[in-house]
């Protein structure tokens, strides 16, 4: 399952992290080292074992479908890198 340069390039793209070409090979080696160590999980017999996603027994709690916060655009945009009149300013999405 060795992770090659092409896989690192693809994963970095999926993760939206710009990664220079000269970093791909060292990263592939690092990730391979970690994944090789993780491989020992294959030794564990997990046949018929239910995956454990949450240690909290209860299901998702429900609440009334009402607005609980919000309604103040200046608060929401106060940390925005760019904003105008209570709107986020973002790069053009549709050409």
């Amino acid at each position, binding site marked *: 399952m060795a992770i090659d340069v092409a896989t690192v390039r693809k994963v970095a793209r999926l993760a939206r992290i710009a990664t220079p070409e000269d970093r791909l090979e060292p990263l592939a080696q690092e990730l391979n080292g970690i994944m090789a*160590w*993780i491989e020992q*999980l294959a030794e*564990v017999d997990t046949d018929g074992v239910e995956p454990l996603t949450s240690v909290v027994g209860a299901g998702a709690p429900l609440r009334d479908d009402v607005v609980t916060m919000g309604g103040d655009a200046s*608060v929401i945009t106060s940390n925005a890198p760019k904003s105008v009149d209570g709107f986020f300013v*973002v*790069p053009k999405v549709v050409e």
Partner: protein
Amino acid sequence: MSALTSLTLKGAIDGLEAGDFTSVELTTAHIEAIEAARALNAFIVETPEQALSMAAASDARRALGAAGPLDGAPLGIKDLFCTKGVQTTACSNILKGFVPEYESTVTSQLWRDGAVMLGKLNLDQFAMGSSNETSAFGPVTNPWRSTASNKALTPGGSSGGSAAAVAADLCLGATATDTGGSIRQPAAFTGTVGIKPTYGRCSRWGVVAFASSLDQAGPIAKTVEDAALLLTSMCGHDPKDSTSLDVPVPDFTQFVGKSVKGLKIGIPKEYRVDNMPAEIEKLWEDGIAWLKEAGCEIVDISLPHTKYALPAYYIVAPAEASSNLARYDGMRYGLRAEGGNLTETYENTRAEGFGDEVKRRILIGTYVLSAGYYDAYYLKALKVRRRIAEDFDKAWERCDAILTPTAPSAAFGLGENSNDPIAMYLNDVFTVTTNLAGLPGLSLPAGLDSNGLPLGLQIIGKPLDEGTVFSVAGAMEKAAGFNAKAGKWW
């Protein structure tokens, strides 16, 4: 004023109540200590004006007879907790300059109970690290030094700032968080007490997320009683966190000092790992002897899947992190690094904003969740996670609490493990199991190694049974008689 900073939290609250000093005096002493200790790099944001105004308000409340359980006590806050109007960055450049418009539930409960905020504490970036070296603000230096050399040691991580600040008497207690050992390992490295409660005890609302099914807040404190006092304030149901447990919170301090006679203490054989220093083995034996003397029954137990906990963690935690950290896109808050189009802006922002360890974990998480690998890695890890939880379920049929070392070594030198991710990950070998199983775990200082550095022991409890953990910790604290402090060099 140094006498005031050497008080325990409980001692300080008693002194305030007795009128021996005011919160303004107590807070001023701590502000001065922080200013004199900048070489430690524990506080990354100091809020002296806010602290003094909170202290004055506390003194006024106490004069009216309306003091809360923590009234007037100055605390440090790990910079993973959002604090309204005070910069919160998780020690990452991607959140540079972020000033929350809201307060985390845990900190709001501390202020509700009267505590005073001294400032924000350094940590490993996004709580990912075991040495504080991944912080964008530079590492914290442990106040403790080896008697063998003066080299700078790590305070552990990720809550290294919290642990160092408490150990150096810069605050009476601190908030911390623990995803794989981030409260307990730094506590062990600094001679302090730290507890991660049962998953769901503390609300995660307003705490910068790392791995949501594992993250839990808890305190780092000078004594077991102080930790109990802080944890009582920090816990409680919060409708804003869907995994917050709707269960009553006892006054945890009532369990400290309670007899442990007749309790069964499990000793897991799998925690005797290869290359464990003889001193840690010896300390563990000491702990067993103390508990026997206190009337506990020692039971050998087996937690057979222990060795798989870390590899499982390094799938589950990065997977959750890659999802949680997708929110940092440079659009709504934090850093934005422009690119030629939207995707490039995302990519540049995240490349510039995240540190190397954070990127490494996001890449692992993205990989194990990607098409073709999800079942082989992520699902497999979740199944192993259940095996680990089942190990504990079986153990609880035979014992009431479990005693283990906290970490496989004493504090190591800054830079010593930073080029070997797996060596760094192994710091959490004894602590990560409780995160995967959701159990409470407490570390307390139990002795010094031959270089004069503190070593910790860990007590693991049943779900929601922090009470027994505190009783056992109280008995061990008494028997250990640990009162060593780091010699002041800063």
